[in-house]
């Protein structure tokens, strides 16, 4: 194993895996609740939140960005409801109005504010820079136990790890309520489950994961991982827990294969290209879904057999 392998490949891959798994876990609920596009919308409105936080504080520190993005996600959820109720249009159209308008506002603010001296631009927001999240101090296996070297780890690794833990804890604590309110909201309501609260908590958590993943790996991975692995897993099985397991497997495979294909894979076919790892991970997840749509055992659902 090459000395730089850990720092240059394993660490960014691990960051990608953490982001992918966090998104995929929540994605299972979004897909079943027909709220997949909420992930899309939230990932878009995160941008103005972050930009406003940046303008107010003048720094790209995580705390204000997280607050700004969470506020933007909350405001957009309220606005979507407002437009849907007042305009009496389907939720998709209401979502479209709100997230495009807020995203446009974010772009405009970004262009107006002087962000050129910090590394923060639209393309970075879209496809992140996973390749740059390397651990240069990680020269060999021993540096895993070296405190000084560990301090050089990209901070995104720790943040995404905490994010994943938060997601898992949330799922453990609210598992029953989440499942019952997803499959049968009317029954859940009559059984005393706070259906609206659970729904709001789920969307808030999606927003938090979106911000964390957004900052590390860009918006594409977030959207792709919120939808593709869970959708593919849904075609594999009729039972929910196996579906969640499949989605995690698909997320990990997408992240690992995608990162590999973007770097080493390109060298293997003898081209000197360096391509976007985030884009490649999203592509792989799409391919997995395509394969499942053609060949997975439960692709047509239980009723059509």
């Amino acid at each position: 194993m090459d000395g730089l392998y850990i720092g240059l490949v394993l660490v960014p891959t691990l960051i990608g895996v953490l982001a992918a798994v966090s998104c995929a876990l929540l994605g299972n609920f979004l897909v079943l609740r027909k709220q997949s596009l909420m992930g899309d919308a939230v990932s878009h409105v995160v941008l103005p939140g972050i930009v406003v936080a940046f303008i107010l504080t003048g720094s790209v520190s995580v705390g204000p960005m997280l607050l700004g993005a969470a506020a933007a996600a909350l405001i957009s959820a309220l606005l979507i409801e407002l437009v849907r109720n007042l305009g009496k249009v389907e939720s998709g159209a209401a979502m479209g109005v709100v997230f495009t308008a807020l995203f446009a506002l974010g772009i405009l603010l970004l262009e107006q504010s002087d962000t050129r001296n910090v590394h923060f631009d639209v393309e970075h927001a879209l496809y992140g820079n996973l390749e740059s999240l390397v651990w240069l101090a990680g020269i060999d296996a021993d540096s895993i136990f070296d405190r000084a070297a560990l301090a050089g780890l990209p901070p995104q690794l720790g943040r995404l790890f905490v994010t994943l833990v938060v997601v898992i804890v949330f799922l453990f604590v609210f598992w029953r309520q989440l499942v019952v309110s997803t499959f049968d909201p009317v029954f859940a309501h009559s059984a005393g489950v706070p259906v609206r609260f659970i729904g709001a908590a789920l969307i808030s958590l999606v927003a938090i994961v979106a911000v964390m993943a957004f900052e590390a790996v860009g918006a594409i991975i977030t959207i792709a991982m919120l939808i593709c692995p869970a959708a593919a897993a849904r075609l594999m099985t009729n039972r929910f827990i196996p579906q969640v397991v499949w989605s995690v497997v698909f997320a990990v495979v997408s992240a690992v294969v995608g990162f590999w294909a973007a770097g080493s894979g390109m060298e293997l076919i003898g081209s000197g290209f360096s391509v976007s790892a985030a884009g490649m991970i999203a592509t792989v997840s799409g391919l997995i879904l395509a394969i499942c749509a053609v060949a997975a055992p439960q692709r047509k659902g239980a009723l059509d057999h």
Partner: protein
Amino acid sequence: MIDGATFVNALTFNAGYNTAIVATGAVLLGWAGGTVGTFLLLRRRSLVSDALSHATLPGIGIAFLVMAWMGGSGRFLPGLLLGAAISAMIGLASVEWLTRRTRLNADAAIGAVLSAFFGFGVVLLTVIQSLGIGRQAGIGSFLLGSTSGMLRNEAITLAGLAFGIALLVFLFRRQLTLICFDETFARTSGIDIRRTDLLLMLLVMAVTVTGLRIVGLILVVALLIIPPVAARFWTDQTNTMALVGGLIGGLSGFVGTALSASVPNFPAGPVIVLVAACLFVVSLLFAPARGVFYGLYRSRAFSRKVHRRQGLLAILRGEAIYDRDTIRVLRSERLIHADGTPTEAGLDAAENAAREEALWTIYLRDNPDAAYRAARMRLDPIAQRLTGSEIAELERQLNAPAGSLPAG
């Protein structure tokens, strides 16, 4: 910040030939997006356009690579737009296939196609960048659009495309309207649903492709969604809605490009979208058909009529009025004195109200179908709602002895 003279010049098409062409293109694009989007909204497929627009990116990348490989510049706009159109169609077909042939819902299919195609497009963009042939300005501008570096014949191409779309919508407006509302009726009147749907999707694709260069692929859906939703507040008629949607879209394109030309660091795409969003907010608040303020005004006016009528009937029965709102309404029209006793005018009005109530009761007995409409109508003076002969007939029945047969 805003350069007033430039703004006025841009608005009056005097800020140079290229700005004028770009503005024309943006107005036509906004118009096309607003009208096509109206049918898309009524067909409940607004967000399909989001998948479509993101799916253009791989096509742009491949078209660029192919044209560069064949020795061209790679930046030839019609070639790039053709590539965009082809990959958008593949994306659309994938969404349709996923929703028809698998158990996935439309939202998951849209999201999956959107993110996977966009991801692949980004991979191709980075390939182009590392080849060193795709200067950022050429290819990156398709993400968020850019009017600054637009060539004259590019602008003319886009304006032509937008005009063609607007024309097609006008020609096929009847078919498009029918499939939005009554599929069965559309089918029995000989309209091919699948073909009309395909036409709608082709129009959406054409708007998307036209908008790529000006607004960019991430925001072009806004032109298909925001103006129609705004137009929804102004009218309940499809044709009017398409017209209003087109006007709002066109106005957004017009004001947006003018602002972008006169304010530094105001990229056209986001500014056009934000102008549309402002027009949306104005519609939401002030539109007469369904706007918030007009709705509040109408519900207040209705509740006032109810208080007036119930108060007058109470006066006639000689009952005391306790409800504060009722007292306030009657006082403001000088129908009662401060102590609650009716004025001269109040007594007249009360007798009139009782007579109208009686006439309405007969009217409803004869026309039970009209009950829903009459619930609101019966609070207005009867002479405003029914014709003189209808009222005369009702009066005849009211005054006729019980048990006599109605005339005719």
